[in-house]
């Protein structure tokens, strides 16, 4: 692409002052892209036909969306203490699951990385198990944890941990594997055992990446956590879904606004941290 952008700056002076077209298009285009675009269009049209959405009914109800937003805009601060405690519960669940998963992720990432224990079989087994855990959406795990552990923050933390640990295991294993073999060999020559090599060479080198992954995951965990209440766990999601179903739009409006503000703050803080590190 950079070649292309340089070509664009070329300006040719034609001798007869005749307008001349300068080709600015990329010469070496990827043949695959048109095929891909056509494929996407065909698939989407097929999908839309298959879904059989009743568009006329949907469009006729659009004014109602405006009404709902109008109602949501009438913020009702009567239940602010309930909203606030559930918001704090949600944030705590997000942070706790993040911290537990960090520890678990480092441990399992150690097993999953090929260069820590040098047992290919172990890393393949760990990686494929966590690929499975990662493929199933978080609310499913939370629902199952609700069955095992009963209502309350326990189920939320445990359910979120499953997915977050699976995510961390994969990404930490990648960071661990990016350590050059020379570093490990140099320490092994001095007679250090595998665990010492891990804590002294591999872990310190991966810390900055681990912090970056954790920051990114906190964003996701918070929005997941806000969702969890809607499938039956506690927290702010429960307040939102409950008050929307009870036509208490003012309370729901306040809760949604707070979710937005917290998510936005986390995003801003994370952008700041990322800039500092980069």
């Amino acid at each position, binding site marked *: 692409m950079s070649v292309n952008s340089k070509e*664009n700056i070329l300006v040719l002076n034609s001798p007869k002052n005749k307008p001349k077209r300068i080709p600015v298009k990329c010469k070496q285009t990827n043949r695959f892209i048109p095929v891909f675009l056509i494929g996407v269009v065909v698939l989407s049209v097929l999908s839309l036909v298959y879904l059989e959405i009743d568009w006329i009914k949907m469009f006729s109800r659009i004014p*109602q969306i405006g009404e709902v937003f109008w109602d949501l805009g009438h913020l009702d601060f009567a239940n602010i203490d309930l909203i606030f405690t559930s918001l704090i519960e949600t944030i705590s669940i997000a*942070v706790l699951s993040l911290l537990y998963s960090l520890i678990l992720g480092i441990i399992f990432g150690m097993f999953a990385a090929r260069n820590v224990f040098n047992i290919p079989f172990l890393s393949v087994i760990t990686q494929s198990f966590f690929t499975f855990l990662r493929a199933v959406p978080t609310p499913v795990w939370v*629902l199952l944890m609700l069955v095992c552990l009963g209502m309350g923050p326990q189920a939320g933390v445990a359910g979120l941990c499953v997915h977050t640990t699976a995510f961390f295991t994969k990404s930490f294993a990648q960071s661990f594997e990016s350590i050059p073999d020379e570093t490990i060999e140099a320490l092994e020559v001095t007679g250090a055992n595998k665990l010492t090599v891990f804590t002294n060479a591999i872990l310190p080198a991966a810390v900055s990446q681990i912090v970056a992954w954790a920051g990114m995951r906190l964003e996701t965990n918070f929005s997941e956590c806000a969702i969890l209440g809607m499938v039956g766990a506690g927290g702010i999601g429960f307040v939102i879904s409950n008050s*929307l179903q009870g036509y208490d739009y003012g309370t729901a409006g306040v809760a949604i606004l707070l979710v937005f503000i917290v998510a936005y703050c986390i995003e801003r803080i994370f952008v700041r941290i990322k800039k500092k590190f980069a």
Partner: protein
Amino acid sequence: MKKRIPLIAHDLKRLYTAFIITALVLFVVCSFLTEFNVMTLIANSDAFWEFITEDFFPPALPKTSRIPGVLSSVLVTLALAMSSTAIAAVLAFFTALFGSEKVSPFPRFAKVVRGFATFLRNIPALVWAFILFSSLGIGTGVGFVALCITSFAFMVRAFVETMEDVSQDCVESLQAVGATFPQRVSQAILPSCLSGFLSWFLYCVEVNIRASTIVGMVGGGGVGLTLFSYIKSFQYDIAFSIILLIAVMVIAVDQITGKLRKEILK
């Protein structure tokens, strides 16, 4: 005497210590607030194992008469993710053109466009689904719109970043020779950013496959709803085989998009 050689720089070490202390403080505060204790989890591990070994294993197939329904619900989920992402991508492309100060014909409104996208993005898809359920009623169409909103907002941000990374000199030079806005878009932005856009589009498809399962659980239809009904009726062994089905679906889509992305970025 043994001497330790520090392997990380001194100022970095201080930073990491700060991180660890914050983590510890957060841990204590949050544990106190939620009254979450790992020990209770470990104490309950008997019931946990019982649940896994007796209710969960082995995965059972649903009744043979229900199998076509389950498979078609998987298709609904896939179709929902695909079509909503595609439509959101088209909308996001045109919006992103106005969201970048370098490209937009009205640079003053670029911030407004981006702020609007930020607002849409920071509210989770499921919250959108609930807001829309209360105005449009329950159904696949609402799931479609909810997925559209979040992936639209995400792609606006991603597309604006892609454009600002790639094509500033390109756009400026075309502007200097007097190209109009549509010409600038079709001659400068599209050729240089298309592969980046498509790569983000594929990422969004991956995310939406998971999200459409979740939106389905609360009433958007598809395999999420099937799973939810099996869990609610305590048929955990059947639910487990559906969870396996979802995992297979997600992993397959991830593999396909991975292959396609390699082809596109070639």
